[in-house]
């Protein structure tokens, strides 16, 4: 029982810590940050397994971590709020004001159908201004 609780606690603690620390891509990884990640991994391993290096314990911890991960993915699919809480939101780094005049001529910048800038659009129609968005 304690192994499952330890794995769950460690998963949540690391998720919160890395949420606070911020995301960064592998390309931005410095040598020091890479070293820091390795130290964190080592400390995590000690906390997860303790002095129990049995096959059963290792499998139990792995299954618990995967189960929590899959469970959170399912929750994210069902709830936009949880998805935003865990994954965050894209940060708009540049926005051009929507112009009524452009709506008749500018092509829809993103595919699909639905609402863009509060107005309905359809693929192929020239009906919206351009916004550039990028994941942070």
């Amino acid at each position: 029982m304690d192994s499952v609780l330890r794995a769950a606690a460690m998963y949540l603690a690391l998720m919160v810590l890395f949420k606070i620390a911020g995301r960064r891509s592998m390309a931005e990884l410095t040598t020091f940050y890479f070293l820091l990640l390795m130290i964190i991994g080592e400390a995590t391993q000690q906390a997860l397994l303790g002095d129990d290096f049995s096959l059963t314990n290792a499998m139990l911890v792995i299954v618990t971590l995967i189960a929590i991960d899959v469970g959170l993915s399912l929750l994210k699919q069902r709830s936009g709020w949880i998805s935003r809480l865990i994954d965050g939101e894209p940060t708009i780094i540049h926005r051009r004001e929507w112009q009524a005049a452009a709506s008749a001529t500018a092509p829809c910048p993103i595919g699909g159908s639905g609402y863009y800038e509060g107005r309905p659009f359809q693929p192929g129609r020239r009906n919206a201004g351009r916004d550039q968005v990028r994941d942070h």
Partner: protein
Amino acid sequence: MVLGLAGLLSRGLFSTRDVRSEDGKVRVEYEMFHRNGSMNSMKVSVSGTPDSQVELELAGEMLEGFSIESLQPAHLRSRSSSQGLRLRLQTDNQGQANLYLTLRGDGLGLFRSHIATLGTAGVKLDQFIFP
């Protein structure tokens, strides 16, 4: 994961046992399920005559499947027997003696043991060690 939480893979609701002998003189609290290489505690309580000595016998397959990492309080005397190990303990002024053991599972599979004081039926233990 559910099995682990329930204690079927060591430490939990289904693993923790508290057994007493028919005459009520020996009580053992132990874990039924262990994992190879991991340590679990066991508490043996014995009732006897106040301020006297009582001899406790750990018998059966326990010592084949487990290593005793610690044994507290220190026993007055110990000797081997044909069944296993005999420990002489000092009882308090209420005739109670407690023995705390830390066991490390070294074997694999089912181990049947027997803990008793001399002249009593004692209790039977079944312990399973996962790989």
